[in-house]
């Protein structure tokens, strides 16, 4: 993995993070949208344009791959490199969260975490 790639994806946007999570199993566009929406309880909704741009960019960078294609319906899956980037970003987020909790005090934001 190159330095440039890490720089580009660390930190990564929330939508990219959730999209990568979604394709840890083979999923097509609409399924990615549904998965992310369900996981975040509707907080993050991916639109056509966002999903198209993101899958295109992730494909170009080799973080995801098309595993099957039927009538224009593409199924995506994360690559080894994608998994590694996702792992590194999760580590970074964990570190960030630890710092946050350290300053703000533990326990307090746990219940409302991930919601606004």
């Amino acid at each position, binding site marked *: 993995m190159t330095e440039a790639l890490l720089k580009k994806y660390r930190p990564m946007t929330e939508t990219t993070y959730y999209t990568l999570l979604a394709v840890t199993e083979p999923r097509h566009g*609409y399924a990615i*949208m549904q998965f992310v929406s369900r996981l975040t309880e509707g907080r993050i909704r*991916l*639109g*056509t344009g966002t*999903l*198209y*741009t993101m899958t295109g960019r992730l494909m170009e960078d080799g973080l995801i791959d098309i595993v099957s294609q039927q009538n*224009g319906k593409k199924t995506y899956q994360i690559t080894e490199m994608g998994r590694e980037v996702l792992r590194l970003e999760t580590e970074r987020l964990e570190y960030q969260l630890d710092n946050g909790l350290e300053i703000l005090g533990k326990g307090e934001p746990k219940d409302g975490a991930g919601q606004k």
Partner: protein
Amino acid sequence: MGQDKNDTKKVFKWYISLMKERLWLEEQSKKGWLLRDVTMGVFYTFDKSGPVHMVYDVERFDLSKNPTKREIEEKTDLMDMAVEMGWKTVCHDEGQNYYLAKPYAEGEINELYDSPEDRARRAERYRSFFMTKVQLFIWIDILILLLGICFYYSPGTEEVAWFSAFSMIYVAVCLILCIIFLRWGNLYAKELRLSLDEWTALYGRNDMMAVRKVVLTIGGLERFLEKKAQEGYHVKDMRIFRYFFSKGEPGQYSYMMDTRYLTNKRRKKAGAGVFKDEKDWEGCNNDWQVQSLREAEAAGWEFVGAVESRNILYRAEAGSGAVPLNDERYKKGIRITSAFGGMAVFVVVCGLVGAVIGGIVGALM
């Protein structure tokens, strides 16, 4: 298609704003007319159906000079994704604008693009489409102009003297078109950056009223706005000779317009240095506006709007005790620089001087 005449309708409609066009198509679907085709960007064909709530979006897929593989495949890929997400490609017009439609879904994203970055990318694409046109027109202009000049000075071309006249008119028309395309491109670049909701909140308000009015004096303008406020129309924004009002409760308000000239008058009176920038040839330096804002707000005035660095408009409720900053006699002053800007005045004066010199030289020869 064997359809009854009442089952389809053709409508001529010319929209400059894509947002307005999309909202209109949406309205049509609610009335039971579904878009089938668009020709020349102005002829719309609709099919009759039951009333449904459809949403529409438009996209274009211009290639760059040396398109990448991804750019070549973009149209197919994006369309495939759109189909998966519930969109349907309705048609495309001669300008290669693709119209997509999808049934409105509560709580879901009802636009093709939902992130500001993606919207900005599309906005840029639309703008550059117009810029390409502008470039083309400028090159044609230069070519025709050169040909016209050559013809004019070539001997033996008297019988085709019309060409010189033609080239002049042609160049003028092309330049006007260039301005239209530039403005059109900028409009798209501005509005496509917004989501439909953001756009509606900003520009699509029914309670806003735009009034074109030439008001020559500052006092005249203040009186005009005060009268409008009494009728319940409160000015929210302004251009040189255009004012935007929002409907509200009738009220007694005072308005005050301030300019660099007047701010400097006050500064001089107070014995402070005036705002002068030797390097500011185009009149863009707005240091005076900062000073004006400070003084006006301290005197109890509320900012309403400004036209570039040319003027600022304030208002205050009647009886609030806000004291006018400027002397009464300046209200009779004609708005020239404060309306059009120093650069415009400079260009016009130069043009007039040039015309006079040209006239004198011509008369002497």
